[in-house]
């Protein structure tokens, strides 16, 4: 009984902050909708109906959430150790691209090709992140800047390849690769719906990540490096080893995000597929909203994906631009970053102490 209570309390500790931020974000959004001249309650009702409370839209939201969840894990892996990897987008582009190329062009039995594709995707993502770690280590180039800039490089290089040498010749309009063999598509749960087992793979990655951060020496050392690098160094943790391994892990996970989208939904690599959808950035938001907690990030990602799906629907049905959804998202983000809640919590604790003391005085 106590155990259940304790784990519920833990979950609450992870979730209460994003929840309050979400509520405040929705309130700000409501004000904007009101100013535009609509009734926020009915708009919100439509929006949530068309993101979570209809089977069709719920599946769409969950499908959209897959790369977002995995990107948030990628961000969390590096950020917990104090390395701000803003390159999830570039890493997922390269990882997805490498895996697609192997899947489309490598001959051999499906099973082997699939494994080779996954491995080469993860290696590509990890190597791309490692390069940023390397130039930080050797030339002191800030990881924030290098990873951010490398997003563009990855995007343009892959765009070159799919525009010229690796372009699907059968389609003269869309700039994309050929489709990967049908046998390699991730199985769908319901036929005709894009929702596929990728979601459960993402869920598995969340648990894997939870295990890594809470129960391994690697997770421990990277967390301590993130919290206080001097303390970690004092305890004999090798800083560069932690940096290289966390960046590699982060890059490999980002690559998984790209691969899940390609093997589960799109079945090919096409121009701008990860930039225009801004999965990586939504994942980053989800990670930050949940204070870098994998389980929190899982729920935040689903919520944000639903907001985007719902936002598109209200644009179609009411004419309120999809940007309102983006605005609500950004407001939530701002409310999370304000340390308002942390202080609020502290103040409450202090009050408890005072009360305790008073009780003791009697």
């Amino acid at each position, binding site marked *: 009984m106590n155990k259940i209570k304790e784990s519920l309390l833990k979950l609450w500790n992870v979730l209460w902050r994003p929840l309050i931020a979400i509520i405040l974000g929705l309130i700000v959004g409501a004000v904007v909708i009101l100013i535009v001249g609509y009734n926020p309650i009915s708009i919100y009702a439509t929006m949530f109906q068309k993101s979570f409370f209809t089977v069709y839209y719920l599946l769409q939201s969950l499908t959209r959430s897959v790369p977002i969840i995995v990107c948030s894990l990628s961000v969390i892996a590096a950020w917990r150790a104090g390395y701000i990897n803003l390159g999830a987008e570039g890493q997922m582009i390269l990882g997805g691209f490498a895996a697609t190329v192997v899947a489309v062009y490598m001959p051999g039995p499906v099973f082997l090709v699939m494994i080779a594709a996954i491995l080469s995707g993860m290696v590509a993502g990890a190597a791309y992140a490692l390069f940023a770690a390397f130039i930080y280590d050797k030339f002191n180039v800030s990881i924030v800047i290098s990873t951010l800039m490398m997003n563009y490089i990855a995007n343009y290089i892959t765009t070159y390849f799919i525009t010229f040498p690796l372009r699907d010749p059968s389609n003269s309009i869309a700039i994309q690769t050929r489709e990967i063999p049908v046998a390699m598509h991730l199985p769908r749960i319901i036929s005709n719906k894009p929702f596929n087992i990728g979601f459960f793979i993402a869920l598995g990655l969340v648990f894997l990540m939870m295990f890594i951060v809470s*129960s*391994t*020496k*690697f997770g*421990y*050392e990277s*967390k*301590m490096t993130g*919290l*206080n690098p*001097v*303390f*970690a*160094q*004092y*305890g*004999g*943790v*090798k800083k560069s080893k932690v940096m290289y391994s966390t960046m590699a892990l982060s890059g490999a996970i980002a690559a998984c995000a790209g691969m899940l989208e390609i093997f589960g939904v799109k079945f090919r690599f096409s121009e701008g597929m990860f930039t225009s959808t801004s999965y990586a950035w939504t994942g980053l938001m989800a990670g930050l909203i949940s204070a870098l907690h994998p389980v929190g990030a899982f729920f935040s990602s689903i919520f944000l994906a639903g907001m985007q799906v719902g936002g598109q629907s209200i644009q179609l049905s009411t004419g309120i631009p999809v940007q309102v959804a983006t605005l609500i998202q950004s407001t939530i983000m701002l409310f999370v970053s304000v340390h308002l809640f942390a202080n609020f919590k*502290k*103040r409450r*604790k*202090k009050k408890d*102490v*005072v009360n*305790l*003391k008073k009780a003791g005085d009697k």
Partner: protein
Amino acid sequence: MKHITKIYGNGVLANDDMSLDLNESEILAVVGENGAGKSTIMKILYGLEQPTAGEIILRGEKKCFRTPQDAMKSGIGMVQQNFMLLPPFTVAENVVYGNEPRKNHLLFDRTKAQKEVDELSRRYGLAIDSSLIVQDCPVGLQQRCEILKVLYQNADIIIFDEPSAVLTPQEVDGLLETLRNLAKVGKSIILITHKLNEVMAVSDRCVVMRSGKHIATVKTSETNTKELSAMMVGREISDASIQPVSTGKTVLDVEHLVMHGEAGKPILKDCSLHVEEGEIVGIAGVSGNGQTELLHTITGLMHAESGSIKLNGKEIFGNDVRSIREAGCAYVPEDRNTMGCALKASLSETMLMAHQDEKEFNHNGILQHGKVTEKFNELLQEYDVKYSSLQQEAGELSGGNLQKLIVAREMSHNAKLLIISEPTRGVDIGAMEFIHNQVLAQRDAGAAVLLVSSDLSELLKLSDRVYVMYDGQINGELTRAETTSQKVGMLMMGGTLDE
């Protein structure tokens, strides 16, 4: 100040219904052990902290200081324990900082500033060359600069927070002289300290504090050190003398360490020392004379250019932290908040540091949480650390409890060499005695202990042998029998014992 109560955000009751009063041109000493709440009440007076309850009355007028600027306007100044100076600027620039004289209301008037500061230093008899760069000044002069800064702001009430903590015994004499002079010209002075001889030497009245409460206010002429210390501690202090144990083979042998800092400034100049089994070796010295760098070099956190460090006969010069720890070295760092822990980490995470490779806690890279919890709960109870759960954050512990946790963590290595820096900085008297006993127990069990402390009385009490460091060098070595604070003070200033 009347009935001041202050409760910090983390629930620490720092002041409990504390009152004190101050007359004109008087030196009032506020004494109490570490953590008695002396600094807190002064921070409240100076506007750095807001009282939870109570009021401040200045010349019959009720005052409320929200910021130090408020307090300064009312003529209250404070000389902080950690100097608030800008090291690359001159003395004059530092003194006028915040109230600079200006040309045409816009430009900084450097000549005028220098002239005013010189004038000020003449008026109060605080000789200083106002064109010196602060970072080149010895600590005593830096403090003088800090005092001038307060005087420049026309303070009538000056608070000194542990002013002698960083000074050599000779510099302390100069400081006490300054205090007397300032009182003579009409300034009121509050002196916070836990050094009773200073209280006896300069103060007119003395307020004793213990665990946030006002214990007594006495005329200095009507009391003595013994009575004061009994009031401070709340009981007679046991003054058990420490018997040396027999020493064995050399555990740590440091030879000819040389290190340069940025811009080629020498930090360690040919530094040599050794520590044997079963002895506590102290390193005395004014902080900033290379002690920190020496300890960091031994523990692998920094690297010297040349020299030799042998631990149990094995050369460890230039090795990394992990291999030095594995070779048998534990280290309680000088600053528990920046190096000894991560304030946001949980207690078990803080305790695990440098234990994460032990078979007991780590099976092939997977941490054994059950074992960790069990062992650490045991250890924390043994060390009498007050905590509610291993999951709480390290930053929620009080300073003394956090320090005990760090000491427990390092001592549980049972390392051959135990390096301890500032073991009791900012901890209460109970924790202090406890930590001292633990250090002695390690020594008695055959460990070699290297101790650095800026609290000279602690250092002299514990050490079987003392090295004095001055300007990156060992400037003398004394056995327990030879040691007196005068001799150590002389050596700390760079002098010799020949006279």
